[in-house]
């Protein structure tokens, strides 16, 4: 089986400029700094990390909404980073995006019908107005919207319904691959579950491939086949959910899991919480070596590798489950973590 999306050593740096006339580059924000992964057809890869870790930038760089600084993004056998805008156009209908904020991502001056139909018109997928209207209404039904509301405006809908409009728009061109950028983070809890179930249903029906971005693990567990954990522009661990939850190996993954509260007081009372100190360092000037070493508990109890942690950047080791950590590398992936 060959991967639908293959990312190789992807880097996305944003220059920080100063000066009025000669805008000289004074620094670089290394939002994504050398990440690689594959997504198989029909698979969902969850991408998890805290704000500013580069997860949204990764999604946008894959879709070529940002043109990457370096690295390859191979989609369906074609390296997208080498294509011009014009050459990219036929690929765009096969890769779509669902956004976090259902308020900001819909044009308030367009009707729902126009919003959902726009990609169909842009990509010339319909021949006349009747066909357009029929397809838009089919999409609305598929996403749980009442097709009678086709002439309404976004402000007339609730947050959850707006997110359904965003999903219908993403599905319009019958894409193979969709980047879901925190699609439930802005919604009420009861509505989050509705949208998650809708996305799962659509994936099953249409054989979609997802990159699902979220800031915490509980949100992606129900939909992801594998989960990649990001920290400061790098992937630190990749595994399926069960493995990741039962036996997280990277110290950052361990902290991330222990930080998510569980709605059960008895479980909460028994849990051993790892509270990370301080904030995520600035991606303008990330720590040397392993980027997590400034907040790492494992480094503190393993003085023999501590020097390596501050000096060398660890690489992902392993096949299906991957970890980038000097302590894990020394002990071997197979050995128990506790």
């Amino acid at each position: 089986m060959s991967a639908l999306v293959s990312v190789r050593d992807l880097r996305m740096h944003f220059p920080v400029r100063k000066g009025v006339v000669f805008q000289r580059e004074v620094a670089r924000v290394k939002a994504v700094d050398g990440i690689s992964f594959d997504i198989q057809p029909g698979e969902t890869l969850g991408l998890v990390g805290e704000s500013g870790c580069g997860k949204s930038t990764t999604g946008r760089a894959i879709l070529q909404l940002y043109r990457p600084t370096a690295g390859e993004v191979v989609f369906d056998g074609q390296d997208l980073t080498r294509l011009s805008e014009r050459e990219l156009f036929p690929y765009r209908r096969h890769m779509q995006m669902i956004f976090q904020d259902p308020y900001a991502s819909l044009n308030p001056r367009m009707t729902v019908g126009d919003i959902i139909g726009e990609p169909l018109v842009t990509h010339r997928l319909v021949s006349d107005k009747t066909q357009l209207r029929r397809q838009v209404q089919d999409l609305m039904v598929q996403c749980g919207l009442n097709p009678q509301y086709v002439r309404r405006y976004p402000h007339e809908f609730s947050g959850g319904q707006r997110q359904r409009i965003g999903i219908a728009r993403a599905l319009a061109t019958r894409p193979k691959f969709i980047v879901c950028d925190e699609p439930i983070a802005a919604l009420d809890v009861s509505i989050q579950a509705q949208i998650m179930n809708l996305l799962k249903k659509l994936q099953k029906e249409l054989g979609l491939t997802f990159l699902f971005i979220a800031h915490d693990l509980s949100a992606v567990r129900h939909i992801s086949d594998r989960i990649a954990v990001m920290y400061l522009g790098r992937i630190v661990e990749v595994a399926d959910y069960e493995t990741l939850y039962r036996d997280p190996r990277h110290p950052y993954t361990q902290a991330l899991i222990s930080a998510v509260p569980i709605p059960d007081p008895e479980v909460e009372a028994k849990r051993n919480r790892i509270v990370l100190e301080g904030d995520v360092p600035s991606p303008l000037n990330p720590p040397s070596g392993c980027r997590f070493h400034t907040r790492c508990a494992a480094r503190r109890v393993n003085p023999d590798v501590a020097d390596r942690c501050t000096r060398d950047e660890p690489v992902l080791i392993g096949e299906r489950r991957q970890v980038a950590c000097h302590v894990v590398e020394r002990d071997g992936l197979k050995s128990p973590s506790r």
Partner: protein
Amino acid sequence: MANNLLEVHDLEVHFRTDGGTVRAVDGVSFHLERGATLGIVGESGSGKSVTCNAIMRLIPTPPGRIAGGRVLFEGRDLLQASARDMRRLRGNEISMIFQDPMSSLNPYLKVSRQLTEVLELHQGLDRKAARSRGIEMLEHVGIPDPARRFDQYPHQFSGGMRQRVMIAMALLCKPKLLIADEPTTALDVTIQAQILELIKKLKEDEGTSVILITHDLGVVAGMADEILVMYAGRVAESAPAADLFRRPAHPNTQGLLDSVPRLDADHDELKPIRGLPPIVTQLPPGCPFAPRCDFASDACRRDYPAPKSIGSEHFTHCHHPLQEVSA
């Protein structure tokens, strides 16, 4: 009940809107013991924030109006207190922290000014004493290098650090009651864990009572002693925390529990609450949850249910509670 720091009886808060009068809070009663933590849980628009703003008498009037009820703080009815007495109380005996620390800090003023103001106002400290107490407090809430940070502006702090500043400000006068309105909703999970640990520690050190408002049942599970579940301005269920999670009686509580993805549960489908949160101007007669409820009967669509006792200190407003009703 002499040990109750706060008692709220039949609180009514109404807002006048173009669509008619909204009963944002409609007959809410609860009490909070000294040193205890109460969690108020509900979807957006359930009236949890309005309830707490009413306790602080922070309802904008008009269009809002506290239409009835009593709020007894140490036996004194705050709804009858003068504006001057309320000013003395706020930030001194009752403090509040909000969801978005950036919009609740003044961006034009250094953190030092915002911290010392409370002390000079309420405790009559001079500049120098207030300054050293302020720096001490920043250190207490875990801000590194507090003496340097003290003279910085809010934008120089990260989200988690800003929330720490808010907490420091709220606790400067050692309040008896801290109201935290979604204090961690805008923060990352690891920072959320830091802030919750901090509130827990400060509560133990100072014996402060806490009201924690949140839509996340996970957050209250580890923090609260008692939980109040609100729906459409009313109390749907009230119970000791352990009992609420073990034996949820109101279908809305059950629905909230089922729709939260759990880290530790087995891999299964999420069961969302169907439909949408209620539109408070168009509430149906009878139980407001009935249109979204799997168990709704004709009685639910007709009459608002009277409270039913489920256990000790555990009651629910539901015609068909999911747990056995005790005598």
